[in-house]
């Protein structure tokens, strides 16, 4: 499913059975099985096998399943894709993308694996991780490079290193990149996800960052600890006023639409049919956040 709620995408070391067995208890929107940074070089094979077995045997209760494969410059990524597609992964996250060609390279392998394992061709989605200055500059080209792309994500770790800076509480050093990446995603009509917040015990700093990226327009954030999940979900939950406004918009737009009227004003605000989608998204978010009590 290309469009779905992805507020929280939780990284898990694919090699750790204790983590992989039941991450759904924390209710993230997506889980990302990591075959890349979390797995030691001499454990890549067994992590891949563990991932395949987990995908085949565990009921993840409808949560989106994403795999982070190893880099396209490594000997591992092709086998990573084969194992993940054979297991029925929903989405392949390609690390350090810097050009549409990177997406094409991974896509070719995904298609081969789909054919090999009898998966409907085109079913497996992709997301591109943008982690370098060049990737940021090419973000729009990357974002519109494939029909399989459900979103792009920003990764700050490598980015700050290559920018010769460090991460600060305020995140000023990331602002340009974040803005560029979210602009590119929106322009390409796909989703956009923010980087991890690694100072797990700094709850206040985390809350500030989540508020910031929500305001910038991101759809969600990668996370590394389950305790970050309820915080994001709470911050992303619409307010009761927003829910009521969305309900009113949907009802009014539908009423006027019956009469063929496309633009009108409600409570002094101009509304048109183009706003329907945003209002519907708000109601879906309210439902996912467990706070919707209406009947839409």
């Amino acid at each position: 499913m290309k469009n779905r709620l992805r507020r929280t995408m939780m990284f898990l070391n694919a090699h750790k059975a204790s983590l992989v067995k039941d991450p759904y208890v924390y209710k993230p929107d997506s889980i990302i099985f990591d075959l890349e940074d979390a797995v030691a070089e001499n454990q890549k094979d067994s992590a891949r096998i563990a991932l395949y077995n987990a995908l085949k045997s565990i009921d993840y209760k409808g949560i989106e399943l994403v795999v982070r494969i190893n880099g396209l410059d490594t000997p591992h990524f092709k086998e990573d894709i084969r194992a993940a597609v054979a297991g029925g992964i929903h989405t392949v996250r390609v690390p350090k993308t810097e050009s549409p060609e990177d997406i094409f390279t991974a896509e070719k392998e995904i298609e081969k694996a789909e054919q090999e394992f009898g998966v409907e061709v085109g079913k497996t989605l992709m997301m591109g991780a943008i982690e370098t200055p060049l990737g940021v500059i090419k973000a729009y080209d990357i974002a519109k490079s494939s029909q399989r792309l459900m979103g792009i994500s920003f990764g700050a770790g490598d980015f700050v290193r290559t920018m010769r800076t460090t991460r600060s509480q305020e995140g000023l050093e990331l602002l340009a990149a974040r803005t560029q990446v979210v602009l590119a995603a929106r322009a390409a009509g796909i989703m956009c996800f923010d980087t991890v917040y690694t100072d797990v015990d700094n709850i206040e700093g985390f809350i500030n960052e989540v508020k910031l990226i929500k305001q910038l327009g991101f759809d969600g954030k990668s996370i590394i600890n389950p305790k970050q999940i309820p915080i994001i979900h709470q911050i992303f939950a619409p307010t009761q006023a927003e829910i009521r406004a969305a309900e009113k918009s949907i009802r009014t737009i539908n009423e006027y639409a019956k009469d063929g009227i496309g633009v009108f004003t409600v409570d002094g605000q101009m509304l048109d049919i183009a706003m329907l989608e945003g209002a519907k998204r708000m109601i879906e978010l309210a439902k996912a956040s467990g706070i919707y009590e209406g009947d839409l």
Partner: protein
Amino acid sequence: MINKVGRNIPDELLVNGVEVFQGEYHFHNKEYTKASPTVRAFVAPGQDKLVSSLKEAIEKCGLEDGMTISFHHHFRDGDYIVNMVVETIAAMGIKDITICASSVGSAHDPIVKHMESGVITGLSTSGIRGKIGEAVSKGLLRKVAFIRSHGGRVRAIESGDIHIDVAFIGAPSSDVYGNARGKGGKSDCGVLSYSVVDAKYADKVVIITDCLVEFPNFPPSIQQVDVDYVVKVDEIGDPKKIASSILRFTEDPRELIIAEAAAQVLVNTPYFKDGFSFQTGGGGPSLAVTRFLRPYMEKQDIKMGFAIGGITKPMLDLLNDGLIRTILDAQDFDLASVESVNSHPRHFEISTSQYANPFNKGSFVNNLDFGILAALEIDTDFNVNVVTGSDDGILRGAPGGHVDIAAGSKCTILVAPLLRTRIPTIREKVTTITTPGESVDVVVTEVGIAINPKRQDLMDALQNVKLLVPLRTIEDLKNEAYALAGAPEEIEFEDQVVALVEYRDGTIIDVVRKIK
């Protein structure tokens, strides 16, 4: 003979009036004659109770082969008393001694060699961890051990099932005439609740302290009228391991889900109203429930009438903020609780008999609305194991007050993860039954909440409530655990019984056999 929870208790163990478990309230209204100790009158004034050494105290008590000695576990992992006494007894050449302790743990690992040599041949305890548990499970103790709950232990003492010849009571402070307290010294533990009954029912009572204070040491937990001798030693324990400066709350997100869901269950039962009463066990998620409870109490202006059991700072915070009216304390886990007990006007010390003895004229657990308890294993009949390990069947747990709280509370809520290191907690059959399913009302895991079908009223109260995790059947939870980890393989034991698991009323609910 098969008992009420379906366990086969070997007939040869059912002697001297010992019966199999027949239900949690089977002996309600039972009449019996209490035991009484043999007391040496201390008529002449001016006699000193202070003796120069532990050895002298043991000699004066007339300790002989075959006798029973008792200990408390208020010093927990920091305890020096048990090892000190047993070493002295061994050096004196005394053997065939039974230890009647409120709990033993890894602090007492050195005792194992005295079990092997025959100095210690019997054991009655409410908790058994560390190398002693392994040794008993391997059949190294010459007599069958008794696992008794805290309430069951004092019942056994008061009813004469077990007779204590000499009680050795470690005390953070004492005067020379034996008024002993849990505080006022350099190794404070707060209360001496577990020893109060020992002091009343043992023939001889020895106070061991590292802090002699001016007479009278008041208010005393152990009174001079019950004490024969006082010994001053260098150290009774390691203060750092007796009471932590800060007991860290769990930050494990899985345990927090369980704790929050348990709090949601609690506040949506009819018992959550002003004046309710509450006890938690000492495990991570159990203690965390208190944290989630506070906002509900504040929002609905509900105060807790009383809290009992093991006390921690979060409970004191509620007391100090006026959200709890009274704390009844049988054990202190952190320095804040030690500081507060018997100092705060509404924070009182109680004896273990007051707390949980089923055979007195009504213990405090009978007045409990809620008990929040952990479990190592829970079966689909809601029976609980808190004493043997799931992976190897070795004694490594502590029924403590579990059985007593479960029987007493109107609503007993068990908090447990679905799996522990890939072994199902919720399962077809538990390794050992310590607490019968009839005492358990709700099981809360991170994936679902199961209500005991006998509690249709709780089902009705909760079925339309928005809960963090859904209501499911216990079979459904078991199935999910088995789907994730496979059905657990049954542990193989030898026939030899190494420990009896006594229900709190003295009947046999299960046995623990020697490991292969």
